[in-house]
């Protein structure tokens, strides 16, 4: 159940910088240019400051790096978006400004459960092993299922292309949500 030794060491070492971004370095290869080279991504202040802006540099990489993900939001709406292999699901939500209320409050530092997502069975089974730390926070998530994980800990792989993840209810039925900004 525990992650392989070297992953654990890396996670422990990078705890101060935001576990999520370092974790995914293992998948993309540490030497690659691009967002993961920005070490201050783990820094809370810069992360907060950059939230409103797209972090994707003009892509010089091939489209083979891109993965399409479908999010089913709490109100049933389907949001389709793209991310790069190695991005976490939290990264995708943030970078694409997906309209999911309160997602990722602690900014990927395993200090909350607001990036809780529900996966399809066949995807869930192939995800990287869960750590005690993630399990501890998942314990607090509302509406936990057998295929739940925290989005900030799940890195995109090519095999996830076109997968659908569901954003579970936070507490009450969000379908009652009134949005006076939308045309009703």
């Amino acid at each position, binding site marked *: 159940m525990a992650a392989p030794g070297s992953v654990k060491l890396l996670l422990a070492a990078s705890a101060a910088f935001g576990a999520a971004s370092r974790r995914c370095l293992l998948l993309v290869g540490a030497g690659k240019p691009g967002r993961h080279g920005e070490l201050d991504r783990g820094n809370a202040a810069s992360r907060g400051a950059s939230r409103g802006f797209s972090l994707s540099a003009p892509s010089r990489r091939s489209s083979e790096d891109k993965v399409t993900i479908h999010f089913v939001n709490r109100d049933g709406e389907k949001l389709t978006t793209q991310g790069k292999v190695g991005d976490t699901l939290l990264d995708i939500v943030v970078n694409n400004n997906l309209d999911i209320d*309160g997602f990722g409050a*602690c900014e990927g530092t395993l200090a909350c459960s607001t990036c809780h997502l529900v996966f399809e069975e066949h995807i869930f089974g192939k995800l990287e092993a869960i750590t005690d730390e993630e399990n501890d926070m998942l314990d607090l998530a509302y509406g936990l299922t057998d295929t739940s994980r925290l989005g900030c800990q799940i890195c995109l792989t090519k095999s996830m292309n076109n997968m659908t993840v569901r954003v579970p209810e936070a507490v009450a039925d969000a379908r009652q949500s009134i949005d006076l900004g939308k045309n009703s």
Partner: protein
Amino acid sequence: MAPRGWGCWRWAAQPRARLLSPAAAPLGFRQLLSTVELVPHICVVGSGPAGFYTAQHLLKHHPQARVDIYEKQVVPFGLVRFGVAPDHPEVKNVINTFTQTAHSTRCAFRGNVTVGRDVSVSELRDAYHAVVLSYGAEDHRTLGIPGEELPGVLSARAFVGWYNGLPENHKLTPNLNCDTALILGQGNVALDVARILLTPIELLEKTDITADALRVLRQSQVKRVWIVGRRGPLQVAFTIKELREMIHLPRSQALLDPADFEGLEDLIKEAPRPRKRLTELLVQTALKPPKGEKADGKAEAPRAWGLRFLRSPLKVLPSPDGGRVAGIRLAVMKLEGSGENAQAVPTGAVEDVPCGLVLSSVGYKSLPIDPTVPFDPKLGIIPNRNGRVSGAPGLYCSGWVKRGPSGVIATTMNDGFLTGQVLLQDLEEGVLPIGPKPGYSSIEPLLKNRGVQPVSFEDWEKLDAEEVAQGQAAGKPREKLVDPQQMLQLIGH
């Protein structure tokens, strides 16, 4: 229902609806009114997670709403700044989201304004379309036992406020010249306090804990901390992440009596996942050999923490000269019932535990803000239905003052969103007054006349920069300012 003749005439003569009472207007007109662009002015009282998340929801889901967030402290963020432990900086990342909200052109932070003293809730209700009370729980539940007033007996809330730089607890300066501290209560706050008492000082030095707290903790003699609960291991209120931190505390060992955990693993087989995992970790830790016997030969666990169960405080025992705490008398309890609803009942036996410091961590408590706002002293909350304050249209509440003082930030976040949702629903359905309201423009002169100088978010950012700069010199993320007068001077008030 026949409309009053003058109503229609007035509307024809004066397109702006403000002179008309909606009740007098014909139905068609009312429908027309609702499509006129109204700028709702909403007031939120309290700038902790409840206040900010409610504001966030309102601003996001209503394109014109303006939200003013009032705060009695000079600085924003409530318990995120004054409650979350210094060694939990990730939890404070939510401040980035709050900062974004505060930066909205439709949002204004108004610090250094004490609602209920500088301005009344009635005055706010007159000025704004809706008022949301999100002022949390600033007090603590007392033990109600003899000796509670002795030097050396503190509320955990005050201790936390002290090490986190809450101005009102600045002078607490606890006396840590004893080897044993005893904490009553087994929630996450109790573990926070224990952890701060036992963490090696060099680790605390890199956090935003106040300089004063570091100075006192550096000289602390406390070697052992007991964390005592009335009920059993299956009723502990702390969560697994915090327990794991205690277990991994450098140079401390866990003192858990295996006898307390006998037979538990069978009892929790069907328990919900969080309780099951938590109990498994407790049992596992209780059955491990003490740290001193590790293979690396380092018997370096000079400090210890332990959990004691089924003990309820009866009396604080004074020193011979009556000057301070020397111990505490605990009633030995037994459990009736099981699971989360088990009750502790006295067996008649008592036990005295020597200690030099008693910290009561048995819950925070809200206080009534204003005589015009209903308050339930027994539950310690504002009576409400889904955030609508009972018997007070246009008045709402969110967070701990609405639901009681428990839950993590995410819980309060969802609650803030819910209250926001309910408020917007009322706005949409015409439950709230629909004419224009002056908002802050009528409060500002009131405050000025009363000699109150509100602090803006920009002002806070100056203080923030100052704290960060001072912290850099000490290798800390920030050196908190703890004197409100100094803070006001720094921003030119």
